[in-house]
């Protein structure tokens, strides 16, 4: 396999810790806002790396374009849903957590 393929693998491997840390944040953080923060931020970077890695390994522009589209859609969806969840939480008068 060529250099590009290896580079792609490295990128994908780089993306994994972000996902893991995002998930840990989702599970361990104290309140809904911090959890949202952890999830969306870390996962978006993680996904970025994975998409980058897969694009490097892709066998044509079609695939790359599709991967980029997926990335874009996930970005839009996650930021919008993050916003909506946070707004709903604020509406319900859930106080943001502060260090006790």
């Amino acid at each position, binding site marked *: 396999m060529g250099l590009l393929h290896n580079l792609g693998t490295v990128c994908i491997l780089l993306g994994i810790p972000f996902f893991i840390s995002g998930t840990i944040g989702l599970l361990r953080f104290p309140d809904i806002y911090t959890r949202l923060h952890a999830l969306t931020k870390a996962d978006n970077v993680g996904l970025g790396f994975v998409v980058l890695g897969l694009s490097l390994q892709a066998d044509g522009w079609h695939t790359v374009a599709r991967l980029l589209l997926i990335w874009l*859609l996930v970005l*839009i969806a996650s930021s*919008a849903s993050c*916003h*909506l969840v946070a*707004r709903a939480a604020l*509406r319900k008068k859930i106080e943001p957590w502060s260090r006790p």
Partner: protein
Amino acid sequence: MMDAMGIFDMVLALALPWLGWRLLASPDLFRAMVLFISLGLLMALTWVRLQAPDVALAEAAIGAGLTGALFLSALRRLERLSEAERRLAFAGKREEEDEIPPERHRRAKPVAYGLALLLLAVFVLLLAWSLAQTPAGGGLGPAVGEQLGQSGVRSEVTAVLLNFRGYDTLLEVMVLFLAALGVWSLTRVRLPLQDEEPGPVLATLVRLLAPLMIMVAGYLVWIGGSRAGGAFQGGAVLAAAGVLLLLANVTVVRQIPAALLRWGLALGPLLFLLTAVVCVAAGGNLLEYPPQRAGAWILLIESASAVSIGVTLAALYAGGRPPEPPAQDRGGEQGPGRDADADAGGRQ
């Protein structure tokens, strides 16, 4: 590598029932529903692992997404109801019979319960044992492979769904139609679905995504002929667009005339049925497409069905027949939904 996948399979296979248990055991219904949606997504992953991409797509869109949305909206409706009740202080006046706590059910007849549980366990173990015992049966895989060339499509699942067993699918489209009919017969929808304003982000999102989703739906129907995809998957994506539009309370959606909606629901079933009849009129059997044009006919049926499936699923989400225009509303007469409220109010 195989081993790694084996472990993955094992974890997945264990996670599914665990999640199922958790969701039924959780006292909070909202949490249960969120777990249900995540279970649906894990199921979709399982379908991919079991090499059933068509099913995975349908599961993710319909099984997890739309069913989950249905559950959540039902829960919200119930919660809103109980809140209203509290506000009106009905709760104190309810009859005693209504106040029996669930615990009474739980504790009833522990012996019978234990016995039933034992019976269930025995039967499940028996099933498991017999599943493990069975030799691999024939299956219709080879038969499908042989006839695939004559089906007019290249995807095996689509060939089974729309050609070899097209009659099943015809009836299935009818089931969906029937569900919409049933829901419409029960009650009338109350728009907007959300109490609060949708807000700029949701509105923008919907404006961005809705056209894209319609395009994706078309793509899924088109690609269904050769790969994973088809009317149901495409229809589900259309329905998702519809649900978003409903949630964002877009004016256009509210102003769709009821007659047009009826036609939208009926288009797929009607066209499918007419195609079946045309096949008979052309001298073949029911649903026997002319061999050269089978592909085109299937695409036609699938496109119409996808539209209807989308409309139907979105209508199911809306949860009732469209409100009649005020001009036709006769004063003092109410639909069943409103009657029901009057009934509940009249009781105390």
